[in-house]
């Protein structure tokens, strides 16, 4: 409902812009017809017209962009509301259950486990949001120290297996030859974990994730995370790294999230002088996310 309302307002502003340009052109043509003999006035006319058209075009572009941004912001607030309130609702429900009902020992242990999992989920959402603030514009530089990348990656892999309650074989990690980079431990760990979390979340019930770390050349090392998930259309490959951006469509809406994960991945890569991008053979064919860091020299 509000979505279509916004689309209408975008259409309105675009047509307003186009209309104004048309009016300016008509006025200018009138000017030319009346003053075609006078060179200086013609020159100023052309100049003024160019300025007006550029102004109107810019104005329209900015308005439309602003409306789009608002829209994404709303979607983000909705997603975050959901991501924050759902675990709280669950923690509350189980606590109340334990408080008011007679629950046998086995169930009680299970409920405690669920409460712990939900508080972890809550914590990770909060950390994700705080991290976005920390790595954003005019923030502190990363806290650089030498890191052994394979160690860090395998630590993230086992953490992901525990967190998502999947067998260790579901995420395979190869090429453990030591590779050292200079980086902020917390940030690099967050970036790798985000890629793993995405790979698991989008895989659905059949999780088969392959993780590799390998030097690309004598300057860079890459972490590749490949999944058998729904894949990504080519037009979306870049956009998914934008802040708050979430793919639309039935496949993607099955997975919940805040739209911050990949933004953090890309920001961390850039802050370390590396880069991050995605590759996919298309929908249904899985995808690969690549994170590159400069090697320690």
């Amino acid at each position: 409902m509000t979505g279509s309302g916004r689309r209408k307002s975008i259409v309105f502003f675009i047509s307003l812009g186009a209309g104004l340009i048309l009016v300016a052109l008509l006025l200018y043509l009138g000017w030319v017809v009346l003053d075609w003999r006078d060179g200086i006035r013609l020159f100023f006319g052309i100049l003024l017209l160019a300025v007006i058209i550029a102004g109107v075009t810019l104005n329209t572009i900015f308005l439309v962009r602003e409306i789009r941004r608002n829209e994404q912001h709303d979607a983000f607030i909705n997603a975050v509301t959901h991501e924050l309130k759902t675990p709280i609702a669950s923690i509350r429900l189980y606590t109340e259950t334990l408080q008011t009902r007679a629950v046998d020992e086995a169930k009680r242990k299970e409920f405690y486990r669920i409460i712990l999992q939900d508080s972890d989920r809550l914590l990770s959402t909060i950390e994700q949001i705080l991290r976005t603030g920390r790595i954003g514009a005019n923030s502190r530089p990363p806290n650089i120290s030498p890191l052994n990348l394979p160690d860090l990656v395998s630590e993230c892999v086992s953490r992901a297996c525990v967190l998502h309650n999947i067998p260790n074989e579901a995420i395979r990690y190869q090429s453990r030859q030591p590779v050292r980079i200079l980086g902020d431990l917390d940030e690099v760990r967050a970036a790798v974990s985000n890629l793993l979390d995405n790979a698991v979340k989008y895989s659905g019930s059949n999780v088969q994730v392959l993780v590799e770390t390998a030097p690309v050349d004598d300057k860079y090392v890459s972490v590749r995370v490949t999944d058998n998930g729904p894949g990504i259309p080519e037009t979306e490959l870049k956009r998914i790294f934008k802040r708050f951006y979430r793919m639309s469509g039935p496949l993607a809406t099955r997975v919940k999230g805040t739209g911050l994960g990949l933004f953090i991945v890309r920001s961390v890569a850039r802050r370390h002088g590396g880069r991050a991008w995605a590759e996919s053979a298309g929908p249904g064919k899985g995808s690969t996310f690549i994170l590159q860091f400069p090697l320690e020299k």
Partner: protein
Amino acid sequence: MKRILVVEDEQHLAEGLRFNLEQEGYEVEVVDNGESALELLVGERRVPFDIVVLDVMLPGKNGFEVVAQMRLAGQYVPTLILTARGHSQDVLTGFESGADDYLTKPFELEILIARIRGILRRGEWLRRDVPKNEAPPELADSFTFGDKTVYFDLLELRVGEQIFPLTLMEMNVLRYLISRAGKPVSRGEMLEEVWGLREDTDTRALDNFIVRLRKYIEDDPGKPRHLLAVRGVGYRFIAFPQKQTE
């Protein structure tokens, strides 16, 4: 035993709800998406439930769409929306889509159970009330066009000797179209007037009603003469179509 359908995709919440509602003595079924819920509620093999507890942010169809489609398909089981979305706009959307109650997450367990009890109790009271209100059968209210007569109160359509029983909603749609005979009626108008739903509800189910009605009242449903489509608007009922002169 009262049967409850819980539509919730967050596994932890769903299992917690199941445990508690079962402890309260209800029979609970859990599904994790709107499509399966619709399958159970309005599908071919529909299963009776006494109340539905419905989440909004579901994968695929969201809760608002699910409840609106249930209502359109004539499924009036009491529905309580249980969601993290608590803006007044969301609450209004929920009720306008056809929900009976709305509770935001996080919720208090006792309040949720009290609301479920309240809704079920209302259903019981209504059922107990029915015999008292049963009026003596009156002469049926009817409308005749061509060789067809619609008996609104009996939910029957007679074509010559044949009798077609209609469902309540089919009859309500037909009654509304007849009351506006000759004038084009928009889909949104029908949704509002007949179902009491929001105008922008998905209208495909409505078109299915028209297809069914045409089977009853048209000699050739492929070439309707009474129930005409009006392009870009909706439908128009014509009681006495003029003979086509070709």
